[in-house]
Every structure is written in C-alpha cells, then in structure tokens.
C-alpha cells in the first residue's frame, strides 16, 4: 500500500515535471515556414534546403513545413507572416530590397516594425553583363557609351523596384549618365533578350551568370569582395565605382516573439549556417551565402529601407 501510493506520487511528480518542461520547451508542434513564391523558385529552394537543418537544430522532433503563398512578388506571403501570431510557429522568407520597397510603392499592410528579424542567409550581388557579341566589355566603355548619347544604353531587368532596379539607380548617379530601363516580367525573358543582343546591357545576379560565362561578358560585381563563385570577376570598387548592391534572402517571424523562442531560433539558424552540409547544398543550388543574424539583420533591413526611400524620393519608379 505504502509502496503503491509512493509510486503514484512519484508518477504524479514525474508527469508534473514533464508537462511543465514541455510547456517551456519550444518547439512543441510543427512550424509553418511561409514562402512568398511558388515552389521551385530561388527563395523556395532556399527554404526547402534550410528546413531539415532547422528541424535538426531546434530538436524535439519538430517538423518545419514549407507553405507556398505566391503572389504580388512575395507581398502576400510577407503580409501573412506579419499578421501571424508571434509564437514562433510561423516564420517566413523575406526578400530585400523588395519587401521594404513594397512599403513605399504600394499600400502594404506591414512595415519594418512588423517583424522579428531572424537571419539573412543569401546575399546574391548584382553583376553588369553585356551580350558576347557586344563590343562594350569593360566598365569604361559602358560609361563612355552611356555618356555619348542619352538613351543609347538600354538595360534589361526583371522588374521595377527590385535589387536590379536599385542597382541601376546607383550606377546612374555614380557614373553621371542616363540609362533606359527595359523592365521585363521576370528574369527569363530579360536574359533571352540579353543573350540575343536585343538590349545593350543587363543587370542580373552573380548566381545567374556563373553557368553562362561563355555567353555573356561580365563587367563587374557589386560586392565588397570578389565572389567565391566567380573569383575572376572584378568588383566595381576595384574599378573605381563605389557600387555595392544585391538581392538578399532571409527569414523573419512576426514582431513580438517571446525572448526564449527568439534566441532558440537564432541559435538554430546559426548552427544551420555553420553546418558544412548545408553550405554545400546552398552552393549546389547556386545560392551565395552571407549570414546576418538577429540585430545585424535588422540593421541591414533598416539600411535597405533607407536606400529604397532615398531612391523613391528622388527617382520614383512609378
């Protein structure tokens, strides 16, 4: 009898401990990872690459489920993340400068304060390319052509208000010349026109050019240091043009995340980033990585918003 009641008491105590610890232990159910683009795109591939590593490093046998909510160049997905409960069970992909540019050129239901900034994973610098048939194969020749006649240089880009567009605005002020934007809908038709020589130059990202070095002249890369994906491409800074810009892809959660949940997520992202297998997977899928965690990411976002505002005020794109 005495033994039985003792064991019941012990069982009660044990179960008490496990329940309280379970309450405190994030994550205890599946985590939704909202992707603002369709399955198979660059952002989606990043999300699907990272999900199994997050599961591993968050522990508790948690599953991270990728949910595609495509539309309005990612805005529908971002809005859903901003409006989700800040409990750590909804996180989402976040693209810069697009996410912040949309708060300027559209009525967005979110702003920079709507998010807890987790980690920026991908930084894909812009490159200037010209068709192989073109005789413009250096920056100097490009600037010369642009200055010689207004409207002589047409620029293929994948959309308005994206990283390629912002880069062009920076280029325009750095070189003091005018360029004609030719905004295609998406990068495929833009590249087609570029490779076919129907436009003078194009602004794309380094990940898109590494496999096409024989088809395109690459004039420079808009990063601080040369890219490990293409060591031979000189940076613009080396060539005397202060141009650094790119497409950033990372992850955010809704604002107001509990501190312990936030620190767990940040730790998991850091561990994922440090995992060599993850780095290999990202390199294979053509994603140049550069980590900005937590506060660093928030600062990066503020910087991008500032840039977008500057351009929007001086040279609005619509």
């Amino acid at each position, binding site marked *: 009898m005495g033994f039985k009641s003792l064991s019941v008491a012990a069982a009660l105590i044990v179960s008490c401990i496990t329940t309280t610890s379970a309450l405190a232990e994030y994550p205890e159910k599946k985590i939704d990872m909202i992707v603002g683009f369709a399955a198979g795109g660059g952002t989606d*591939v990043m999300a699907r690459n990272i999900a199994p590593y997050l599961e591993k490093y968050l522990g508790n046998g948690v599953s991270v489920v990728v949910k595609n909510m495509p539309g309005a*160049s990612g805005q529908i997905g971002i809005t859903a993340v901003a409006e989700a409960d800040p409990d750590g069970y909804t996180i989402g992909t976040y693209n810069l400068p697009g996410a912040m540019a949309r708060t300027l*050129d559209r009525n967005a239901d979110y702003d920079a304060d709507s998010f807890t900034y987790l980690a920026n994973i991908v930084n894909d610098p812009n490159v200037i390319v010209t068709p192989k048939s073109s005789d413009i194969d250096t920056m100097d020749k490009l600037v010369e052509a642009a200055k010689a006649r207004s409207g002589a240089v047409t620029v293929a880009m994948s959309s*308005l208000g994206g990283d390629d567009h912002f880069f062009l605005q920076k280029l325009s002020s750095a070189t003091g010349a005018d360029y004609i934007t030719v905004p295609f809908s998406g990068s*495929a038709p833009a590249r*087609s026109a570029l*490779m076919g020589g129907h436009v003078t130059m194009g602004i794309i990202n380094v990940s898109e050019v590494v*496999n096409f070095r024989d088809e395109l002249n690459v004039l420079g890369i808009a990063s601080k240091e040369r890219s490990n994906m293409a060591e031979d491409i000189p940076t613009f800074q080396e060539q005397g043009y202060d141009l650094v810009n790119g497409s950033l892809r990372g992850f955010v959660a809704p604002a107001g995340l509990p501190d312990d949940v936030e620190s767990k997520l940040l730790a998991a992202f850091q561990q994922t980033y440090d995992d060599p297998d993850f780095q290999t997977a990202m390199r294979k899928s053509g994603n140049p990585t550069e980590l900005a965690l937590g506060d660093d990411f928030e600062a990066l976002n503020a910087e991008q918003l500032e840039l977008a505002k500057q351009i929007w005020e001086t040279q609005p794109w619509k």
Partner: protein
Amino acid sequence: MYGNLIDALPAVLSLGNIFAVVIGVIAGICVGALPGLSATMAISVLIPFTFGMDPLVALGMMAGIYNGAMYGGSIPAVLLRIPGTPAAVATSFDGYPMAQQGRGGYALQVAVVSSALGGIASALVLMLLAPPLAKVTLLFGPTEIFWVAVFGMSAIVFLLGGDIIKGLISAAFGVFVSLIGVDTITGYERYTFGHLELLDGINIVVLLVGLYALPPAIGLLEEVRDFDTQNTGRLNTTSIWKAIPSMLKYWKTWLRSSVIGVFVGILPGAGGSMAAFLSYNEARRASKNPEDWGKGEPEGVAASETSNNADTAAALIPALTLGIPGTAVAAVMLGGLLIHGLQPGPMLFRDNPEIVFGFMWQFLFAAILLIFLGGALATNSFAQVLRLPRPLLGAIIIALVFIGVYSINNRMFDVYLMLGFGLIGYFMDKLKFPLPPVVLGLILGGFAEQNLRLALRIGGGDWSILASSPTAKVLIAMVLLVIVSPIISRRLRARKASKKVAA
C-alpha cells in the same frame, strides 16, 4: 554529344526510372483530364516531394506528367466540350462534335496517337538539335515576339465565329482581362481595385475553367431527366491498333503541326495553347474541305493534339541550354532541376550529362508510353465516365474545379474569381458569344502589348525598330501574307465566276 546520349540510356532503363515515367504519364493523363488541374500545377505540387528522390526519378515523373497532361486535356474536351487544360481548347472544336456523332472513341484515339507522335518528334528534336535551336530562340527579342503575337491573332481570325461583332466583343473581353494587374513597364496597377491577388494578373486556368468548365457543368445539372445513359456511354471504339491505319492519311498534318509545336515551344513565353490554335488553323487552311472543320473533322483533333505535345520537350531546349523556359511548365521544371542542384546552362551538359541526356530519353519514352497507357485508358476507362447520371457528373466536375482552382495559389480569391467568370461564361453561352476569342485575347493580347512596349522602349520610342531585324521582316511578310491572301483568292474566285457567267 551523341555519345553522351547513348551513355545515358542504361540508367534511364533501370526499373525504378521506367516506373517513374509510367507513373508520371498516368498521373499526367488524370491531371490533364480533370478541368482545373494543369501540368504546371501538378509539377509544382510534385517538386517538394522530389526533394529526397534520385534526380532521374523526379525528372522522369515530370516528363511523364507533362506529356500525359497534354493528351489528358483532350479527354473532357472531346467528351464534354470542357478542355482539361488551356492547350486542349482547339481540340474541342472538332472533338466534341465527333463525340456527339458517336465517334468520340475515334476522336480520342486520333488524339492519343497524334499526342504521342508530337511528343516523339519533340523529344527527338530536343535530343538531336538542342544547341542550334537554342540559337533560334535568341533571335526573338521583344520586337520579334510582338510580331509572332500579331501573326497569331491575324491567323486565327476565323475563331471569331459566324457573328463577327460578337466574336470581336469576346476577343476584346479577353484583351481586357489581360490588362488586369501591374503594368510591368510603368509599375502602375491596372483594374486591381487594391487587391493584392490581382497584381500578377489573372491566371489563365482561372479564366478557362470559369468560362469553359462551369457553364457545361451547370448544363449537366439542368438535365434532370434521366435519359438513356447506356447508349451515350458507348464510344463506339475499335481496338487502337485497328484504328491506326485509318489515321495514316493525317501524316501531313502530323508533320506540319509538329514543326509548329516545336517552333512555338522554343519561343520564350508562348505555350501549348498558342501552338494548338496556330496548327489547327494552318491545318484547316491546307485542308480540301475547310467547311467541314468545326463540325467533327478528325484532322482538327490531330492538328491540335500533335502540336500541343510537340511543344513539350521543345520548351526545354532554351530552358536547359540557356535557362530560358519556353513555357510555364518548363519554368516550373527548371525549379525541379534547381532543387536537385542542377543549374541550367552549358555547364549542366558538361557536369551532369547522364542526367540531362537521361531526361531527354525520358521525354521520348513518355511520348511512346502515351500510346499504350493513353490508348488503353481512353478506349476503356474514360468512356465509363459518361455513363454517370448527368447531374452527378456535373456536381463532380464542379467539386474538382473548386479544388483545382484553389490549389493554384492556395487561396479562395481565385475560386471567387472563377465563379465570376463562370457567370459571364454562362451568359455568353446562352447569348451565343464565342468563347475561343476570349482565351486568345488573354494570351496573345497581353503578349503583344507588353512586347510592343518593350520594343519601343528599346528603340527609344522610334517605331522603325519594329522592322529593324531580318527576323522581324520575315514575320511582317508572313502577317501580310495571311491577311492579303484570302482577299486575293476571293477576288480571283469572283473573277472566275463572273467570266463563267459572261461565257
């Protein structure tokens, strides 16, 4: 390069990889046959699941789905006048009248044989001629694509139907729908009324399902009286092997439509529906009895089905070599490659020849399998669908359509939009407005407008850019020929007739 092709064969012939293609083709036929589900969607749903698979297994399933769906779309197009995919609209022109005449089984057999032949032609072109054809893709900048769109519109003016005014109103409605969304050139939103869901424009599947699937489904519900389903369920088919000899006379159409399909496939942005419309029209123009077309001419089914399958592997030519997808499906497939760390471009052929060339073989096998799997399915299984009581069939179609449209972007907004189009389609049907011009207006109108404006931007506003390249000049000549030749032939005929009267 051809050595690589042979080296890639053994891996493709392994049991698992063959099985993947078989599963893909069957799944593709089913997806294509269900209105509201399309190949694009099926493959994008599949992609996440392929993450852990062997690349060739994943790609084999995709190749199978693409080929299967392009044929599958013709099944409801023939049996119910509901195109299962956008590319099957032209198949319904003659396929449905054939079914009404009790020749639905033969129509499906023509469709499956033509689909397989188109697919085989396309796969062979992909295997043997990919690098030179990729160069053709690059000849087409915005200027040239604009002229292709104009050519498409002028070539298929007959789709306007008997009543030209009503046809033009339908076409204008399609063009209007193509305007909805963000104008990519200026960034301004057109007719979006603040809805984020409208910014990217209206997905063709939403419009197609609303206009084409809902009104006939409602029509099925209206047939409350239970008539003799025993007879209508019979397709009057013979074995497909006995039917094939009678089709051999379509060889010219098969050839012509394959060429058209391949050509449209390598153009960036155009898709299977444009290939089908164009080749239907060209086949009709070449026919000795054009007046029978639209009333149950099997050659019309052959033309449309050959070219929408000839579009499949061809669309991968610029996709694999240049990273420029020829169709929406090819774009999704690129995503499927990327997820396996396979990036398009010349490097892909150098670094992973066994996968690229294996993928090409899989396209060929998928097309050949279509005859066996599609032939068997078409003659037996799908005929049974027609034996269902009409209201039940209507209700099933409506349910499927809801699921399909919802799953495009995972949102109800598209379903409401589809219901709106359904209402419009229902009244258009009752008031005898033709539906094909709407689809065409949506596809070609937007295509023409955007490329015209891009071309003018490149040319600095100077209209002479439109005739600046040799390719553009050839296209202009083709447009003029299409517009002028009927006028001249009519004049000649009138003169002959008047001479006869005088004599």
